[in-house]
């Protein structure tokens, strides 16, 4: 037999079955968590506004990303900003996934989750930290939000903070609209923003 035939047979004699890898990867995630080297755990969840990427550090939920942001790009950004020690490890995201599911079912009006704010700083962070004050089913203007953050004139900066919110939905930037009623931009697209506002209005 030729070496090519032998090489092909070697591949068959030492297989890597498609069923093996998910099991081994789950085992790796558990071991990495145990050893404290799982810097970022992530998973995706389906939702009425499309697939959402959820990522958490040991400190808490650090990122929620819409499919339109491209999840691979978001994971690469997390590797660059936080750490490349990233694994698909649904265990750490159990609470966020459950609470988001309840929210989309109309059974939850606020989130009770540990958040890791490290991806936003300065005035943007001050703006985002005010967002939970805008209650479920209500809206506020960018100007009002700027005021809440302590600088009523910084309307544009407040809008930028919303546009770069690393934790959309849980930190409810979708409740911020223009004073004239226009819905404004949204990271997940205007349709997603409309859908969230409609969900909250109906519940």
């Amino acid at each position, binding site marked *: 037999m030729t070496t090519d*035939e032998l090489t092909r047979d*070697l591949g068959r*004699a*030492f*297989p*890597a079955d498609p069923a093996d890898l998910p099991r081994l990867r789950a085992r790796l995630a558990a071991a990495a968590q145990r050893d404290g080297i799982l810097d970022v755990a992530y998973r995706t969840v389906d939702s009425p506004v499309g697939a959402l990427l959820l990522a958490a550090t040991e400190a808490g939920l650090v990122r929620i990303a819409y499919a339109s942001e491209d999840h691979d790009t978001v994971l690469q950004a997390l590797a660059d900003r936080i750490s490349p020690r*990233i694994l698909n490890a649904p265990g750490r995201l159990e609470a966020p996934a459950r609470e988001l599911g309840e929210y989309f079912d109309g059974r939850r009006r606020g989130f009770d989750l540990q958040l890791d704010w490290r991806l936003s700083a300065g005035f943007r962070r001050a703006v985002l930290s005010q967002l939970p004050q805008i209650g479920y089913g209500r809206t506020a203007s960018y100007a009002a939000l700027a005021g809440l953050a302590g600088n009523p004139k910084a309307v544009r900066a407040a809008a930028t903070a919303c546009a770069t919110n690393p934790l959309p939905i849980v930190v409810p930037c979708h409740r911020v609209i223009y004073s004239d009623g226009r819905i404004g931009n949204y990271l997940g697209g205007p349709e997603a923003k409309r859908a969230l506002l409609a969900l909250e209005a109906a519940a």
Partner: protein
Amino acid sequence: MKGKQPFDAVVARHGDTVLRVCRAVLGPADAEDAWSETFLSAMKAYPDLPDGANVEAWLVTIAHRKAIDVTRAAARRPVPVAQTPDRAAAGADSPGHGLDGELAEAVAGLPARQRQAVAYHYLAGLPYADIAAIIGGTADAARRAAADGIATLRRTYQGAPKAATKAAMKGQPSDH
């Protein structure tokens, strides 16, 4: 600045190859432990891996060391449990398993250096210079170890019988 890709992508890309290599070097009983130890160890060191390093060669290097650890630990263990029943069970629903098992046994019978050189070159696709860095010695010595291993496998493992191939072709329509 775009730096290292998420470790998850490294596992997705190289997980298969490392598992094959672990199976070839260690056999089925210890392969999954070695795979897990390899990737856990690699993940610890990953932030310090120089950018542009050959990730597959790096992983095989770690797997090689883990395999040595596993082999040493196994040598201290009492008589190992026979693997035959597992193999027979797996063979029931995978045609050709008998031949694959025969080849796996032939590989298991090779001297360690030959088995490693064959696995790292023919399963992981590493060049002999990289293999020499992993198993020691020169690239030429690594190439000879792999060639000797392949020669032994050719003698001890015949592959699919030619007669069976001919029989399978008989049923095909002829152009003539």
